[in-house]
């Protein structure tokens, strides 16, 4: 790996980073305008954009730990890239602060007078409590940052030590970390997605959120590989077989998302409970039925059949389109999950877009990509030392 620094001068990490920063600043200026002038309309857009952006580092943290546990060449190829993604988590955590400031415009349960009048919300008040909500947010990002930084620090250390001494530690820590991810992502999605409709509950939603995070993480990897495949060290080590693995993982996550989303619908439909069905009624009328249909057709069927085809999975220039497509529809999914709670009353909601719906994701994602590329440049793209490194050059 003598070309350690070679990638740092690539077009991707320089001009692409500048474009991302430009769009990020522009979008965030739009967000600032929205926050000041139309906070009630803006908060849901920001929450959707935040979740969409945060899904990449959160998914990457899962993948980073999965690859330590599973092994395999795909993990070796992706390791440094996942590390760069998870290192952004503390700053991603700071980007959640506007949601806390705008708590009253985002979460119905934060209004004591509404809760007092509503017996169901009164029973949930111990959990859906602003102070406890903020404590949980600090705990989530504290844990995520801790695991992200520990895994990064040990990876640097392993490169220096040039032996595999730290591997058992990283393995065990990753096992613990995945359990931690399952719990924190469950509670985080309950707080940030489910509680925008505080009467509604679904034990399937956290799994849908995990599937989306994993999908975003793997899709972003494909985008990065497409842009760096012609520069060293990926030029000589990123083989079609590894790309095929990422395509298959994306296929698996696409199916996982569909499986969970449909299960939630089926459970709700069979149960036919009055706390649950209005959630779907709202999302299947008033224009949102088209968003739902688009999700079924374009977030599942089209990418599913595209990803069944081997030639697409083995060609970065083709796979990248499926990956970016899926990333875009992950935003649509978050929009469909969250937005209807803000554009209507009772069990009816009208599809409605605002300028902030576009400013928030562009601003947050632009800023995130810039942060990520800054991290990616700092270290060689492949581990300096790993006993499996040899295999990488043999196909």
């Amino acid at each position: 790996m003598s070309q350690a620094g070679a990638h740092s001068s690539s077009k991707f990490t320089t001009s692409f980073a500048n474009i991302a920063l430009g769009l990020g600043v522009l979008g965030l200026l739009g967000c600032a305008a929205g926050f000041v002038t139309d906070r009630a309309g803006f908060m849901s857009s920001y929450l959707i954009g935040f979740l969409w952006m945060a899904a990449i580092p959160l998914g990457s943290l899962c993948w980073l730990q999965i690859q330590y546990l599973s092994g395999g060449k795909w993990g070796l190829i992706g390791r440094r890239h996942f590390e760069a993604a998870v290192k952004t988590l503390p700053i991603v955590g700071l980007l959640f602060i506007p949601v806390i400031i705008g708590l009253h415009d985002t979460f119905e349960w934060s209004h004591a007078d509404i809760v007092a009048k509503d017996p169901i919300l009164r029973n949930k008040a111990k959990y859906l409590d602003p102070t406890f909500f903020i404590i949980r947010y600090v705990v989530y990002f504290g844990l995520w940052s801790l695991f992200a930084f520990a895994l990064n620090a040990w990876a640097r250390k392993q490169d220096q030590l040039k032996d595999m001494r730290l591997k058992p530690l990283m393995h065990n820590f990753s096992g613990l970390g995945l359990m931690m991810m399952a719990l924190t992502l469950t509670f985080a999605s309950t707080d940030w997605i489910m509680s925008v409709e505080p009467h509604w509950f679904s034990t399937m939603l956290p799994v849908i959120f995990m599937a989306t995070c994993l999908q975003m993480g793997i899709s972003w990897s494909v985008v990065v590989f497409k842009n760096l495949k012609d520069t060293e060290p990926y030029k000589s080590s990123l083989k079609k077989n590894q790309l095929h693995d990422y395509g298959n993982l994306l296929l698996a996550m696409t199916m996982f998302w569909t499986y969970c989303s449909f299960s939630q619908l089926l459970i709700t439909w069979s149960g036919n409970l009055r706390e649950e069905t209005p959630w779907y009624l709202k999302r299947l009328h008033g224009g949102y039925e088209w968003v739902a249909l688009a999700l079924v057709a374009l977030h599942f069927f089209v990418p599913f059949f595209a990803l069944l085809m081997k030639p697409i999975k083995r060609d970065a220039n083709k796979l990248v389109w499926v990956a970016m497509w899926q990333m875009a529809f992950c935003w649509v999914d978050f929009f469909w999950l969250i937005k209807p709670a803000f554009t209507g009353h009772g069990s009816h909601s009208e599809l409605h877009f605002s300028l902030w719906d576009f400013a928030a994701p562009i601003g947050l994602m632009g800023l995130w990509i810039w942060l990520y590329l800054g991290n990616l440049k700092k270290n060689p793209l492949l581990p300096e030392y790993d006993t499996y490194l040899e295999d990488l050059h043999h196909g």
Partner: protein
Amino acid sequence: MKHEEAPQLFGLLAEFDSADDLTNATKAVYDAGYRKIDAYTPFPCEPVMEAMHVHHNWVPLIVLVMGIIGGSTGFAMQYWGSVIHYPWNIGNRPFYSWPAFIPVTFELTVLFAAFSGVIGMLLLNGLPQPYHPLFNVEQFERASQDGFFLAVEATDPKFDHAETKKFLESLHPKEVFDVEP
């Protein structure tokens, strides 16, 4: 003499030290014009497959078609059962309650696809095969342990016992065996 012997043989079998050696030898044998060749490795080895130019495989298409047939069958049978043949009011839901049909549709898709994958694979590759001439070579047992083998069959138009043997020996094998039919 050699021309009388040739039809008596199934072919020649060369053993190699590693997958890389086998890949190189396969490339050379293919480039020399031999087509009735086959490689045997202890584990799936894609470079060797590429060297033999065996690319086309019907199994994925069979699985796709059977999966679609399975899914449609599952859905159609439930539709027929609960809408046409035996409509029954359950919880005042419509007869055509498609969400309830999806799990069975999914299961039948998987069932048809998985079975057609296994059966299609067996029909196309001719397994199980209780006898094969290569079993006459004692060392061939190691193809499922640590041996890498390349067989050139006598039915290949280019096959000539002495010539082919000389050619195989030039590819640095561990050993070249005559295979009786």
